[in-house]
């Protein structure tokens, strides 16, 4: 029967591996996102948005 194996996992062990995998994926995503921002800021100097330049409300 499909899914029968799920009946025999205790709540802890059943999700151990999944949590390890998700944490790794999220960690990798975080790492590459950081890397991308570092890479981007190295080549592209942060520009002021036109609205910020012209907005008389911003001192």
């Amino acid at each position, binding site marked *: 029967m499909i899914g029968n194996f*799920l009946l025999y996992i205790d*709540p*802890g062990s059943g*999700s151990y*591996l999944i*949590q*390890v*995998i998700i*944490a790794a994926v999220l960690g990798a995503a975080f790492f590459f996102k950081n890397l991308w921002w570092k890479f981007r800021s190295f080549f592209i100097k942060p520009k002021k948005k036109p609205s910020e330049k012209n907005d008389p409300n911003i001192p």
Partner: protein
Amino acid sequence: MIQTSPDDPIWSGYSRDPSGFMFKLNDQYYRQVNQLYAGDYDLLLSSGLYHELSGKNMLVSHEDVSGSVPGTPGYYRTLLPRQLPFISYPYEWSPSQLRDAGLLTLRITRMAMEKGMILKDATPFNVQFVEGRPLFIDTLSFKAYDGAGPWIAYRQFCECFLFPLYLHHYLGTGTHRLLGAWPEGIPAIQAARMLPGRSRLNAGAWMHLFLQTKIRTDKLPGGRRPAFSAVHLQRLLTHLESILQKLSTDNFSDKGWSGYYEDTILSQAYLAGKERCFLELIDQLPMASALDLGANDGYFTRLMAHKKVRIMAVDADWQCMETLYRSLPGLPSRDILPLCLDIADPTPPGGFAGTERKSFTARAKADLVMALALIHHLTLSRNIPLPALAAYFAQLADQYLIIEFVPLTDEKAQALIRNKDSYHSDYNIENFESSFSGYFRIERKMQIEQTGRILYRMRKTTQS
């Protein structure tokens, strides 16, 4: 030794959690903490977590009454928690209520980790709504956390909060009926079968839902387990939190009753007239609680929000209850509890042996019961005879009933019987009044201007 109340089997000292149980004594609910839980209970207090959470109104506060109320053998402490006026269940909540309960659970887990503890279970039954806000009520759900393991309640959290909310996000079904069918959570495999194909493209759904259907845990490496830490867990919790915040809790494409009052032109004059009558009928009425049956989007519930009355608003249409729940922050009183349930089929008792959770009827007592524009639906559409309705409303009302009679000649009543061969043809004002007179005395009746509808205020004459 604890004397439990024999007429209240739910609180007879039975609990699934070996850490302790609830019991009722002299009309107060107590919580016994068992010896088994002593270490974790002491840590909850000594770490400052209890004070932080209860101070922020996230966890129910309690008083330690061990000195005056000793427990059964093996007991460690007796607690007198803040008494809650009404207990509701996840299968009576609108999607936003479930989401807010889930967010509270995650936030508490993160705060607990900072104090070296974690939640050992993550079921929405641990959350109640008090004055429009979720409150965690299980003081015994906390356990010490070594900062290295994963979250033991992760799968339960997914099955009870995340999967119903994903299903709602993609299908717009509401969540209460799903949790009625699976009160202990929807298994990943079942949720995966119901979700549309495009949900597989969603990274969050793929990781937290579809992955669980792919990984066979019997392939787990024996002995050494892959490394895991608190940092990983924090990341996981933050991810769950951001998913819950992004998931849609509305879907108003399938229009239920939520536009009833706004939609019909007839309503404008009718509504204004009904509001005047209603305000006159409730003026100076002494009451502490009210139950609005068939509340729609809570128009009349909200009219009472300036009174110091605790209100339960009930409607079978979850969209109406969702609208009402979202409107609470802007009201003068937030002491309004929206509940998605059908009066023709109210929540039955639940849990093991049918004694763990009470039926709606057993919980819902109120000084005032309101049934506005409701009984024609129950009698003409749902075929519930007037005497049966009168008996049921008398069971729910402690003192007063404000009820609207919609005559058979009314446009809306006609619409209900247009295609019906058989209905209760004795549905008329004489039978209505005589049926309700068996339990109530009619105090006032007011015809709503420009309609044949009549608003009654009745006072209960029988004891329940």
